[in-house]
């Protein structure tokens, strides 16, 4: 864009601070790290090995089994969020945004509280509640006569991942709720009034008028959920440990990456294989985000108010 008729300095001024800070502190270090995926240790010194690490990650049955297991778990983790977190978030936002709702501020705050909690507390309290030993969940089920449904969910391979995903939904439902809420509030009153004149009210108003208007925001929360889930790590780490038990049933890409990159217990950190996994994850997320940016976002109809 250099030296045409009039160089629009203001564009550069608007972009410069963000680009500079972001490039220096985030991009440069991260490129340095991802670059490690092309290197390996040969007899103690760092050597360029080309794509050999990727060949190991996808070719060696041990590495690839761990990778595909983590990817599959991650996909399920994401699916649960898309099917539970986002619809619930949209529903709550829709209810909250209805005019004349009393106590809206209270609900909005209360529902957002879990999002603020640190993972340490979230892990502790849910383990306490779901624990077979200290009795909160078993007794509550007992009280409604469903004691038989109780199982040590976090300890069973078949339930642990879904349980964790639901805990994560509980924690983060405030995020889609708030984004959609902001979007719903931005719809001008004139639009709503016009709809009401035409007799479009209640749910049909939501479906026919509001939902199309907030589609771009739903697009954003979907892509943010995707990115967030494929980078997730803390919740599994604090509640199931770095080995993501039972039997790697809750291992997602984030835990697999951290275990490899930083090491765990006697396993030494391996920056080369770690960077390889990170690059693979980056590729997956990049593809997802590009699909959104170039295929979905550009097609969403946007309304200007």
């Amino acid at each position, binding site marked *: *864009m250099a030296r045409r008729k009039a160089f*629009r300095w*203001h*564009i550069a001024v608007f*972009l410069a*601070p*963000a*680009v500079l*800070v*972001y490039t*220096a*502190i*985030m991009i*440069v*270090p*991260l490129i340095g*790290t*991802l670059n490690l995926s092309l290197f390996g240790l040969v007899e103690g010194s760092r050597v360029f090995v080309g794509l050999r690490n990727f060949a190991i990650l996808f070719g060696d049955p041990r590495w690839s089994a761990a990778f595909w297991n983590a990817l599959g778990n991650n996909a399920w983790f994401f699916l649960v969020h898309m099917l539970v977190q986002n619809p*619930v978030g949209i529903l*709550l936002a829709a209810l*909250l945004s209805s005019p*004349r*709702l009393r106590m809206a501020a209270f*609900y909005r*705050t*209360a*529902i*957002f*509280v879990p999002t*603020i*909690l*640190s993972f340490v*507390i*979230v892990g*502790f309290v849910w383990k*306490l*509640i779901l624990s077979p030993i*200290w009795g909160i969940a078993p007794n509550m089920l007992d009280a409604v006569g469903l004691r038989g449904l109780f199982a040590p969910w976090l300890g069973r391979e078949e339930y642990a991942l879904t349980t964790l995903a639901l805990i994560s939904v*509980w924690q983060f*439902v405030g995020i889609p709720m*708030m*984004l959609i*809420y*902001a979007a719903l*509030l*931005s719809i*001008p*009153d004139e639009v709503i009034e016009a709809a009401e004149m035409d007799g479009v009210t*209640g749910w049909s108003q939501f479906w026919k008028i509001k939902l199309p208007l907030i589609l*771009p925001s739903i697009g954003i929360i979907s892509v*943010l959920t995707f*990115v967030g889930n494929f*980078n997730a*790590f803390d919740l599994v780490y604090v509640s199931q440990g770095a080995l993501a038990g039972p039997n790697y049933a809750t291992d997602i890409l984030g835990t697999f990456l951290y275990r490899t*990159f930083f090491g765990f217990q006697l396993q030494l950190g391996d920056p080369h294989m770690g960077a390889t996994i*990170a690059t693979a994850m980056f590729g997956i997320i*990049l593809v997802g985000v590009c699909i959104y*940016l170039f295929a979905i976002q550009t097609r969403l109809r946007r309304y*200007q*108010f």
Partner: protein
Amino acid sequence: MSARHSTARSIAAHAILILYTVIALFPVFVIVVNSLKSRRAIFAEPLALPTRETFDLVGYRTVLAQGDFLQYFQNSMIVTCASLFFVLLFGAMAAFALSEYRFRGNALMGLYLALGIMIPIRLGTVAILQMMVASGLVNTLTALILVYTAQGLPLAVFILSEFMRGVSDDLKNAGRIDGLSEYTIFFRLVLPLVRPAMATVAVFTMIPIWNDLWFPLILAPSEATKTITLGSQVFIGQFVTNWNAVLAALGLAIVPVLILYLIFSRQLIRGITAGAVK
């Protein structure tokens, strides 16, 4: 729209919201209740309210006795607020450039600025730490502010540029006809209109900053620069964790964020009403 119909709807809305509020707050209730009990009582009956025998402020006492928690709170506040300020300002500026102007490389720049949400910044730790060591910023709050600003920018740009695309062109063009500079248009016309989005971004940005353990541990572990989250970690031991103290410390730690949240979510409403009046 009959009145009875609307009452029924409003009852249903409240029922759903109350149900979800209970789900959201039940675990928080468990946390608060148990932070007021002795360790024995936590595990003997985790749901029981503290009684005269089990009421115990040992957690809070331990927290106050070990380390300067007021200082930690202050550090967390400074880091969070300063980072938020830079993220919002720089992020909004960049988002405006991306959404307002057509220039070559716009889409690529948008993608470039979004890369940061796709790779966890922790992976760059060693290089970041080296940079901070070289510039003498280790054990300063500045180091944390810089890292969090960089970390928060991609998401801010991503969300804000989406919202800025929804700002009316007519308004901006009217400003241009009146001879306003691009800077004035941005600061005077556009920023106030995207206040709800700014408030949303502020909330999303502050939570991971406030709760982050990793960078304080690496970049600023000294006593004078500890954040509240890092300060609370001292109670998590290798073999035994002082849950009374952890619950007390981290429970108290949500109060400032909750206040910030209330401020921002009020901004959100106010932004809307201001926009409506325009």
